[in-house]
């Protein structure tokens, strides 16, 4: 696949993590991701050997937890449309499109370079369809052709909608996160069921191990990982202040009840609903 311009290293790496762990399609990786994965593998292996959480296990824990919440939203809470913002090379759209077929509309959204790359890969796989599409979207644009609002207009207002972000919030300042959540609420509120699912970094419980992990994560994303809220209660309050009727922030390990080691407790997952 060509066209790696303007695609972040994290997108390449996380794509490879998903693929190496059996979550992705053989064609949803990149050469850059493979190089990064191989380069970081000794560090990850050393972390694992020392019983410490690794970036890889953290990424897997949050991905699986979001999967689980989205599956529940579809099967138990009336969601049949999904917009995944900053989807990158995430295989979730492909897997959910495969699993639910024409019962689910799955819109993958990202900046133009990544959107083009993803669109080509999904077309090659044969996964693009009226139900599974890729759109260009800048999460920070409020209104306009590449905005969430423009993507949502294309959806069926009589069916439930979920918005997913994974690995996006950590890049943003708190003010931008609050603005985003407010826009997410306003968009979801136009649908009979509206759910927002994402990962979130919390400031509480900064143990030495967590501090070391954050340093690794910050180095990886080539910038600070923003901590917007001290704890789950503060984040939940903010989600409700943004208009959501209910909000819960839990460790990924509690969402999936799976043995995910320490990583399952470092990755926090939020779920907010408009109803």
């Amino acid at each position, binding site marked *: 696949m060509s066209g790696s311009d303007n695609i972040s290293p994290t997108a390449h790496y996380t794509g490879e993590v998903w693929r190496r762990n059996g979550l992705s*399609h053989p064609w949803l990786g990149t*050469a850059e991701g493979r190089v990064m994965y191989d380069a970081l593998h000794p560090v990850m292996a050393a972390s694992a050997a020392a019983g410490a959480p690794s970036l890889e296990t953290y990424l897997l824990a949050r991905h699986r937890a979001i999967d689980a919440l989205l599956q529940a939203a579809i099967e138990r809470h009336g969601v049949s449309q999904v917009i995944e913002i900053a989807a990158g090379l995430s295989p979730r759209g492909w*897997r959910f499109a495969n699993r639910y077929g024409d019962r689910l509309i799955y819109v993958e959204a990202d900046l133009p370079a990544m959107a083009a790359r993803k669109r080509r890969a999904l*077309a090659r*796989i*044969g996964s*693009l369809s009226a139900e599974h599409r890729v759109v260009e979207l800048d999460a920070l644009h409020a209104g306009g052709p590449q905005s969430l609002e423009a993507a949502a207009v294309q959806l069926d207002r009589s069916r439930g909608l979920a918005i997913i972000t994974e690995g996006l919030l950590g890049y943003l300042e708190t003010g931008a996160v609050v603005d985003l959540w407010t826009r997410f609420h306003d968009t979801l509120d136009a649908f009979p069921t509206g759910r927002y699912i994402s990962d979130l970094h919390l400031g509480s419980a900064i143990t030495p191990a967590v501090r070391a992990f954050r340093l690794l994560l910050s180095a990886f994303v080539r910038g600070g990982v923003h901590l917007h809220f001290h704890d789950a209660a503060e984040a939940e309050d903010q989600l409700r202040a943004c208009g959501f009727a209910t909000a819960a922030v839990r460790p990924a390990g509690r969402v999936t009840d799976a043995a995910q080691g320490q990583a399952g407790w470092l990755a926090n997952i939020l779920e907010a609903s408009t109803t």
Partner: protein
Amino acid sequence: MITATLYSDPACPWAYSESPALRVIEWRYGDQLDWKLVVVGLTESADQYAARGYTTLRGALGQLSFRRYGMPFSPAPKPRLSATARACRAVVAARLANPGSEFAVFRAIQLANFTTPLVLEDDDQLRDALDGLPGVDAAAIVAALDAPEVTEAYEADKAATRAAAGSAAELQGKTATTDGPVRFTAPSIVFQSNGTALVAGGFQPVEAYDILVANLDATLRRAAPPETPEPLLAAFPGGLTTQEVAALMTRGNDAPDRRAAEAALIELVSAGRASRLSLGDDALWTTA
């Protein structure tokens, strides 16, 4: 990154019969191979076939000799002879409209051509063959068949195909000169990396492709065959034929075990995890 340029034509039975080997290479190396599909454009007019003494009966009988390679066939004489140009243009139009979708369009035309009475140069039938293909606007593709940009890209493909003189494919007798220049026969693959180009001309066993790829880059990851067909059906949402699944489940250079593959597929259908669509004398298997 290795670029794999596949020179092919949807009407060529050799290219069609290569499908199991291509699926294996796709599975093994995933996105480490950047595939490009270049159409050969075997014929512009049905008269070219008639002039060679080709008939619809001969076409149907010819399919019998390809059964040994395992792809589905429905050997009955077509209503009339047909050139391949319109079908090739459809592949090119798909590539221009939605890069990546040309592979699905190519496959859909292949399957329809070899298992139904489809006449390739009948635009209505071509549209029907593509109708319902996920992510493909069949009507728009057929409407664009004669568009200038499609013609330009199609002619570029034909010219690229007809530049095989002096290649390893010619050395192996895997080229043709049916319309003048030395051209690649379908299917031919040119693997390129870091200035090195290795040619697999014409029909080849999967082992030939594998050796070329491995020699271009010994650091690649190589996916093993899965234990059951289920991951394969997920990876190829457009469906797989029985022989393709058998090839994909084969270890090393063993012979594919078609019976075992079909048994495993039937078990998946029984469990509600796969679907079987009858296709010619075989089936297309998909996730349920």
